[in-house]
């Protein structure tokens, strides 16, 4: 793929209505249904439709302070489960019975049926108490078994749902020296990453019966605000690798490492981290996902910097999102910009060029900015950006991906990446 042949732009498609008119912190797209959940400083979560761009529900009454974060439990059947994390130090679990044939449940036709008791559809099921101060982020593991929460009290809690609405604390991890801003699970393994005010990223996994810290990344120079993992089998590299031997080898190495991790910071950088594969003697790619090492006494992992993205932000970068479909990365922050980056295979004759901000290890890949918008939410800060699949009538194809941004102006906006011809 050649970056010069097409110059994508970010076009605003819609603002979800009505505006929250107060700070909106972040938005989570539902894993299956065409709906979004937006966490707000007004102590509510708003549910928006991706087909009509209108608010379907307002989830209220569970929290006494700002809702900072929310996350949909993956893999649920016939119901939607939303976890919320609040500045009131509690996390909430909310349940919603999805109508039979739930793909239609949130379309325009059924909206009238829903509107009468729409707010009652959401049942506040459980309150998870334990943190001593504000919860900053909540995240479900890929299989839905575990819920992680993190707080200004410097701890990460891992909860496991033993039976319906009965959550047990399986770990309290106190590795950070400060406020923990963000938790995120690996897309394939029960590996948890946390990031925070102490400028570090920590990774945890279960060893025998205990959750322990298996890696610490401390290369950032300021608060790490957010994290996202690379999608498994990232198409952006696989689809364009071609016959070049050096690229093939690099791709094989990447497959051994598994999904990489992206982090964004108040130090104005976005960095990509890559796990050093264990059992270095092996050559075959781990496509079959059978672990080569069942368990060793040493579960420590080494995560090294794979890349530093081109610097575009002038103020704190609050959010980074790695697209599961295209492998593009989007970022946003205090400067109000949304920036989109793409990873390319480097032309082989570029290999010897000196790079000023290159990663410490040699790779045959490079990141470029492919789209950028300033003042994405007028003059306001943008707190969050994420990817989802477009569902409204204007979509060009079934899999068209869009960006959702959430700002201090209370707006939730949808952006389309338009590729020039």
């Amino acid at each position, binding site marked *: 793929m050649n970056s010069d042949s097409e110059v994508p732009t970010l076009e605003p498609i819609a603002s979800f209505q009505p505006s929250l008119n107060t*700070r909106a912190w972040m938005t989570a797209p539902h894993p299956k249904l065409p709906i979004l959940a937006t966490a707000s*400083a007004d102590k509510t979560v708003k549910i928006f439709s991706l087909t009509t761009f209108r608010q379907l529900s307002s989830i209220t009454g569970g929290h006494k*302070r*700002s809702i*900072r974060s929310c996350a949909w439990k993956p893999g649920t059947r016939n119901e939607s489960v939303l976890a919320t994390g609040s*500045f009131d130090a509690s996390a909430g679990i909310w349940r919603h019975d999805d109508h039979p044939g739930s793909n239609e449940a949130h379309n325009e036709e059924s909206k009238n049926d829903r509107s009468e008791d729409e707010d009652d559809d959401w049942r506040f099921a459980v309150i998870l108490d334990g943190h001593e101060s*504000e919860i*900053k982020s909540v995240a479900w593991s890929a299989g839905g078994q575990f819920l992680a929460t993190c707080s*200004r009290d410097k701890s990460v809690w891992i909860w496991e749902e033993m039976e319906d609405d009965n959550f047990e604390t399986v770990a309290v991890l106190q590795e950070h020296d400060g*406020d923990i*801003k963000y938790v995120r699970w690996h897309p394939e393994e029960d590996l948890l990453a946390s990031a925070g*005010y102490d400028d570090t990223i920590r990774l945890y996994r279960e060893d025998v019966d205990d959750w322990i810290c298996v890696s610490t990344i401390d290369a950032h120079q300021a*608060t790490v605000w957010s994290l996202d993992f690379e999608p498994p089998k990232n198409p952006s590299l696989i689809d364009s690798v071609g016959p070049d031997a050096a690229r093939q080898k690099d791709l094989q190495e990447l497959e051994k490492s598994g999904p990489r991790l992206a982090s964004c910071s*108040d130090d104005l950088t976005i960095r990509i981290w890559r796990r050093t594969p264990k059992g270095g003697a092996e050559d075959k790619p781990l496509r079959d996902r059978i672990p080569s090492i069942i368990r060793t006494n040493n579960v420590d992992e080494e995560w090294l910097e794979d890349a530093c993205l081109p610097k575009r932000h*002038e*103020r*704190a970068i609050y959010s980074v999102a790695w697209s599961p479909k295209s492998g593009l990365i989007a970022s946003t922050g*205090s*400067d*109000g910009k949304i920036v989109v980056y793409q990873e390319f295979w480097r032309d082989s004759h570029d290999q010897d060029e000196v790079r000023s901000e290159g990663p410490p290890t040699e790779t045959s890949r490079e990141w470029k900015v492919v789209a950028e918008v*300033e*003042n994405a939410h007028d*003059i*306001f*800060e943008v707190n969050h950006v994420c990817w989802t699949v477009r569902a409204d009538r204007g979509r060009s194809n079934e899999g068209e991906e869009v960006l959702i941004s959430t700002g*201090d102006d209370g707006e939730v906006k949808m952006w389309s990446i338009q590729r020039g011809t």
Partner: protein
Amino acid sequence: LGGLLSATQPIDDPFDEALSASESESDRDFDEEIDAQEIYDLIAPISDPEHPLSLGSLAVVNLPDIHISRPSSARSRISTVVIDITPTITHCSLATVIGLGVRVRLEQALPPRFRIDVRIKEGTHSTGDAVTKQLGDKERVAAALENNTLRGVIRRMLSTCE
């Protein structure tokens, strides 16, 4: 007269557009005219949380320690105000509260296109860097301002600003 005007002027009168354009022009001029002295005048009357004195009279805020940077590019509309505050004593336990008061005052008084960075002036406080980091953390500031006790303290500090 009002009826006559509305009857003779179409709703999309181009004059209206010209008027609104010149209005936004003057808005921009207004913003550009905001200088360090005006910022100082906004924050100097803030009361110290434990003395019946203003931050200006205590030299906690000082005109030379206020810096404004204009938008970094033609497309950007974001300006930044940086204020270095000088705590009265190097171990002042109220430095964070004073800094919050300054930040809240400017967030209320300035148009939202201003980003406000309140810092502890270098070498004037034993934990200056830690306080500066806290004051620069939007999330911690937002959470702190949901605390009623702290909000009351800041309201009293700002009550001398009108």
